């Protein structure tokens, strides 16, 4: 039996907006095991962003339990959650969120800067290694504004990998990219999956589910389906078959 990375039980999250209570999550339970590539899908308003924030320890549930790598996150203070995010989670955002005018290397080093047990030397080494892994070994010193969207997202992925997280949380990671670049990024995700990384990919694009190992569908704060994908399509194949843009 693989290790339980994420275990949530009857997770509820209510927001108070004025006099009304918005029920974003109305009792969600699932367990994600090590080495899974899970897509969480849903339309806007389905609660997937709230779920992602909760899984990412940015938000705390109103009720229910959440165990990340065996640790109960519920009841943790702000600073403890910041530490958990720093050590156990790798975030990838739709709009990359790289620091402007900063080199790829420095961007990737960033999470380690907030971990005082990592020395400056180790920091640089690990950042460089991660950038090579995502195929940017030649662009260590390129600044974020000198790179294309795809390259920026690769830097962001390297940044999510640099702290050896137990889980990578991607929020619409291909949302801002064209089809071809999307598939090259997806190829990278699949490679990480094959290497044994645990990935949660939140998206509203149903196509992406074809390339993941498991798909959880949310609607109105409930899980409507949770299916394993036995026939994972290769993103790399699609990528190769897409015509290169020659202009």
């Amino acid at each position, binding site marked *: 039996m693989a290790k339980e990375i994420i275990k949530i039980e009857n997770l509820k999250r209510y927001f108070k907006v004025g006099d009304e209570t918005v029920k974003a999550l109305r009792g969600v339970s699932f367990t994600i095991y090590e080495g899974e590539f899970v897509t969480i899908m849903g339309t806007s308003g389905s609660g997937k962003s709230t779920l992602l*924030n909760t899984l*990412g320890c*940015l*938000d705390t549930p109103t009720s229910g339990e959440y165990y990340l790598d065996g640790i109960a996150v519920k009841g943790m203070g*702000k*600073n403890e959650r*910041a*530490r958990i*995010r*720093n*050590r156990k989670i790798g*975030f990838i*955002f739709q709009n990359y*969120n790289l*620091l*402007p*005018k*900063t080199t790829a290397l*420095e961007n990737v080093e*960033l*999470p380690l*800067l*907030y*971990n*005082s047990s990592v020395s400056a030397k180790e920091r640089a080494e690990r950042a460089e290694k991660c950038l090579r892994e995502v195929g940017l070994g030649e662009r260590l010193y390129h600044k974020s504004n000198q790179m294309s969207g795809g390259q920026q997202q690769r830097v962001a992925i390297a*940044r999510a990998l640099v*702290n050896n997280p137990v889980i990578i949380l991607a929020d619409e990671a291909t949302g801002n990219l064209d089809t071809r670049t999307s598939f090259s990024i997806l190829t990278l995700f699949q490679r990480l999956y094959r290497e044994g990384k645990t990935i949660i990919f939140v998206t509203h694009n149903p196509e992406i589910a074809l390339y993941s190992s498991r798909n959880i569908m949310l609607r109105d704060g409930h899980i409507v389906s949770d299916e394993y994908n036995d026939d994972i399509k290769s993103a790399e194949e699609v990528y190769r078959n897409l015509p290169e843009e020659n202009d």
Partner: protein
Amino acid sequence: MNIQNLFKIAIKALGNNKMRCFLTMLGVIIGVGAVIAMLAIGQGSKNSIKAQISEMGSNMIMIMPGAERRGGVRQSSDDMQTLKPADYEAIVNQATGIAHITPTVSSSGQWVNGNNNYPSQAQGVNTQYLDIRQRKVAEGEMFTESDVKTAAKVCVLGKTLVDNLFPDGTDPIGKVVRFGSIPLTVIGVLDEKGYNTMGQDQDDLALVPYTTVMKRMLAIDYLQGIQASAIDENRTEETIAEITDILRTQHKLRDDQEDNFSIRSMQELAQMISSTSSMMTVLLACVAGISLLVGGIGIMNIMIVSVTERTREIGLRMSIGATGKDVMTQFLIEAIIISVTGGVLGILAGAIATWMIKLFAHWPVQIDPSSVILSFVVCTAIGIIFGFYPAAKASNLDPIEAIRYE
């Protein structure tokens, strides 16, 4: 999170906005520079006054006839005649804390030498006057005790008088000049001193035995004043008390009667002058301090803008593991770097400004190390105080909202 890393982050962030960073710093630079320069001017003028006064004799004591009156109350001529030569003798014989003492009487009039004449005074003193005022005879010699006893018709001229009475440059020693109708033989010329702080020409002066002035010029039997110097500058107060006792006994004053003379020390005078100059310094420093405050507000303004502008960056930092404290420290460090760098450059600017003032305006200036330390401390404090609010604002951001901020 160690502080060293936060420093790196802060420096990096400031480096991304060099122009804005410099302009914010400029406020502090000008503020600190102004404070340094103003305090340097204040300190310089204070020092120069002090130097002038100690040159005049900081242990000097002046005894004047008449009670001390303030507020324009006129004194009768009787009051002005209370100091007699006998009083002088009594002080000479009884006072223990006095190094030198001279009676003073002066007469205004016209000094004449042939076709040349010049309006000035004849300062009647004894031989000890030179020691009290720390003057020297440059050429010739001073009159002697026996000249004083005999009310000899001799004089020692100051440089200004020599220049006006002997414009052709002849040696005045041995020549006879007239003061009013009285012929006096020039036996010496005083050293040149120039103008003092109050703008008086210290060379526009002629010394004559006080007996000569009293008997031959004014025909009076009282003294216009007595000048003395205390043995020890620090014992001036005691010496003044001693003289007061002697004079009260001399004048046979009962306990309930006020003094009919007044005694002033150079120290008092010095305090009076330097308190005026201190007040000016405080005023100048206040104005400069206000500009420093404005500089601090500039820092706060820019930091607030910066926090808003970098909301997403803050959100990102928080989502990858920065705590609220980390974010707060980062922004505080940014503010402190701006203010302290501005402070150091401001001290430099102040030093340059001070040097220019000295060079072009010839004002006496002196940069006090304490003012440098003070500016530095104030700068750091300003960085912390004005950086605190924006930093707290940044640290209180919700990472969920901040990361999606547009």
